[in-house]
């Protein structure tokens, strides 16, 4: 390709510059650095009051501007998708870490636990978004029953291998059973609906998902005795899931911590427990956090496996047919592709992956209840896919990460930081939140903003919901193609540009 063609491609396909405006980030970085220097000088000569906390805030903002700049550059010039994903994740660690340490003065244990939590959420969302991307992004199958297929996976696993209300069979059997059950329910949902238009599939899947949740919630199936064994869904009380197998690395008996540690657990807990490097708080990292961390590392490996699998499916003649079905099913059919069969296969594979992701998420936390699988869960996964860019596997992972950290986990953390900031900067004490919105708004007339702020922060999860709704409206209007835009993730198993012979008269 000639240099001319190269530049045009940069501007047409790589329109990320539009999104991450590097230049403005660089300007902000410079300005913030200047302000920081000025404030440092002031505080050095002994000016107190607002100056030291403001200096802290400016410093944090400068770090953030630097990150935006760095990610923008990585985004634009990195040819490696893996590098981009790792870069974004690391940048988000810094975003959270710096804020936690500077404003909340979190001890090491709390810091590590926060990072563990955002990684956990990013990983499970990445898996779910990747699975949904196979349905919606690749094949155009509008599945809005993701939560239901997750529930099938988790509950089947819990009933096969769970400690109570379960058959108590080995966990691998439970996981395989859960995944197969999700695929099977996917097939049952798909068979009648896939013959019809996309809208019908949407209606059928959301209905299925709600039927599944309400069935699990019903007391009718909560407990029953089959062949002398008590099994059931636990109804609204939920169901216990098996011990996380990752505990076997640390404990000789995963179910009983008093039974003793394995050699690995012994050494590792000794080390992590004594880490008191900074922000000494008397403890290092707690054992439970270390176990959680080990599980998250396993999850990240599984995300990589999901990604590998879905890329492989996408970059193949099979994936090419899926894309063609998304674009115009009649064309694919008229070219000799049995589109019905392709759709059913794809739907089952996606549902199986949703079931597996559900098991790895909700099945890993000790117990699960039907309200974990509300339609809102599906909405979140869709939002993450839209943010990342439907049709792109890399975009799916990025969307999962950005959604889980910034949009889902970000607001509650921000709600913890804001009172500290207000106290430091303006001496505003955010005390107990009022109980009703009237009590929060009325004092505004006498210019007392504290109750209103306290009320808003108290209800941050509701506000987050509104904010996400507004965001999705904005994105659909202004950037329906998501972060990665219309990326050309080629649907072929070989390098496509390699086949050209002679070159011809390409511009």
């Amino acid at each position: 390709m000639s240099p001319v063609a190269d530049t045009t491609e940069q501007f047409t396909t790589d329109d990320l510059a539009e999104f991450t405006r590097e230049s403005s980030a660089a300007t902000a970085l410079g300005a913030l650095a200047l302000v920081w220097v000025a404030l440092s000088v002031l505080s050095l000569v002994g000016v107190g009051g607002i100056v030291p906390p403001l200096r802290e805030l400016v410093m944090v903002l400068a770090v953030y501007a630097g990150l935006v700049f760095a990610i923008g550059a990585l985004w634009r010039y990195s040819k490696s998708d893996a590098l981009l994903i790792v870069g974004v994740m690391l940048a988000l660690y810094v975003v959270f870490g710096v804020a936690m340490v500077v404003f909340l003065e979190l001890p090491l244990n709390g810091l590590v636990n926060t990072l563990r939590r955002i990684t956990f959420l990013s990983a499970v969302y990445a898996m779910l978004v990747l699975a949904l991307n196979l349905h919606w992004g690749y094949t155009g199958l509008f599945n809005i029953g993701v939560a239901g297929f997750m529930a099938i996976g988790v509950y089947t696993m819990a009933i096969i291998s769970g400690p109570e209300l379960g058959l108590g069979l080995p966990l691998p059997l439970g996981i395989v059973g859960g995944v197969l059950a999700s695929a099977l329910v996917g097939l049952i949902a798909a068979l009648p609906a896939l013959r019809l238009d996309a809208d019908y599939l949407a209606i059928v899947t959301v209905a299925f998902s709600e039927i599944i949740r309400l069935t699990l919630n019903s007391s009718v199936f909560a407990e029953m005795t089959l062949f002398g064994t008590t099994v059931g869904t636990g109804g609204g009380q939920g169901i216990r899931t098996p011990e996380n197998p990752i505990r076997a690395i640390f404990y000789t008996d995963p179910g009983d911590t008093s039974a003793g540690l394995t050699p690995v657990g012994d050494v590792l807990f000794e080390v992590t427990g004594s880490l008191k490097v900074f922000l000494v708080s008397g403890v290092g990292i707690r054992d439970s956090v270390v176990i959680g961390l080990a599980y998250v590392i396993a999850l990240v490996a599984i995300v990589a496996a999901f990604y590998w699998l879905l890329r492989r499916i996408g970059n193949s003649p099979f994936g090419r047919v899926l894309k063609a079905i998304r674009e115009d099913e009649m064309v694919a059919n008229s070219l000799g592709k049995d589109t019905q069969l392709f759709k059913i296969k794809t739907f089952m594979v996606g549902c199986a992956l949703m079931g597996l992701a559900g098991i790895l998420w909700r099945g890993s936390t000790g117990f699960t209840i039907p309200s974990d699988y509300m339609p809102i869960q599906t909405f979140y996964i869709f939002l993450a896919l839209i943010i990342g860019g439907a049709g792109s596997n890399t975009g799916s992972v990025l969307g999962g990460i950005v959604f889980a950290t910034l949009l889902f986990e970000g607001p509650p953390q921000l709600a913890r930081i804001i009172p500290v900031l207000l106290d430091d900067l303006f001496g505003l004490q955010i005390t107990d939140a009022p109980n009703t919105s009237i009590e929060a708004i009325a004092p505004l007339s006498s210019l007392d903003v504290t109750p209103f702020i306290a009320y808003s922060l108290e209800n941050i999860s509701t506000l987050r919901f509104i904010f996400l709704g507004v965001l999705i409206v904005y994105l659909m209007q202004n950037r329906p193609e998501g972060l990665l835009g219309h990326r050309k993730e080629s649907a072929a198993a070989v390098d496509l540009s390699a086949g050209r012979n002679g070159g011809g008269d390409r511009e």
Partner: protein
Amino acid sequence: MVTVSESPRESGETAETADRADATATHDTDYPLRVEGLRKEFGGITAVDGATFEVEAGSLTGLIGPNGAGKSTTFNCITGIYEPTDGAVYFDGEDVTGLEPYQVAQRGLVRTFQIARELGEMTVLENVMLAPRDQRGEALWRSVTPGVRGGVVEQEAEVRDRAWEMLEFFEIDHLAEEFAGNLSGGQRKLLEMARVLMTDPEMVLLDEPLAGVNPSLENKLLDHIHDLRADGYTFLLVEHDMEVIMENCEHVIVMHQGSVLAEGDAEDIRSNESVIEAYLGEDV
């Protein structure tokens, strides 16, 4: 540009082409497509009313008729998009009546659409690479399984090389990596032809390939069709532009009100009283 003699047909010769050649040898290959008493009703309307005709192997046959004569419906019945109410369609001596479109296409009878239907958010090259029949990698397990995928990649390289040749033949290879949705109307028509030929068909049904095409592109498309015909492809061409059909097709079928009104070469048709009446809309 490749010359006609090195057309994709030969370069893409695979095991299955040879198989098919064997199979067709046992059938009546003089007239691969036979339509008998085809009837299609939509509610109370009879769109096709007992149409019967055959298409000769290696010919460029034209199907004309005024608007509403039932040409497109006939096409849709042949290619499985509609299920005929009555009658039968035979391809290569085999009854293909009521089969699904993909089953008809897998037998080597493929079609283009009246309005070009490009796969907009796939590249031009991907559009063309989609088409070939019997792609090993279309089986999910083969695409994914390590070790087995080797065969898939091998075939992909062949398909890709053929696709490039095909795009060069239609002179749209410079657009190979563009999204098909960015193509102009004429380029889309070319893409559609390229895609259909990539299936390595025995017979191609062209549904108004020249509709909305400027004169120079029209000539180019017709040249391509003649080149390909000389190469052994069979074409059935639907048009409502009399002139195009008369000048290019050696055999013409005229449809009117759902049935075949007349058949013959251009001269026969030109002098046929009932055809003239049908076209001029006079009462008989």
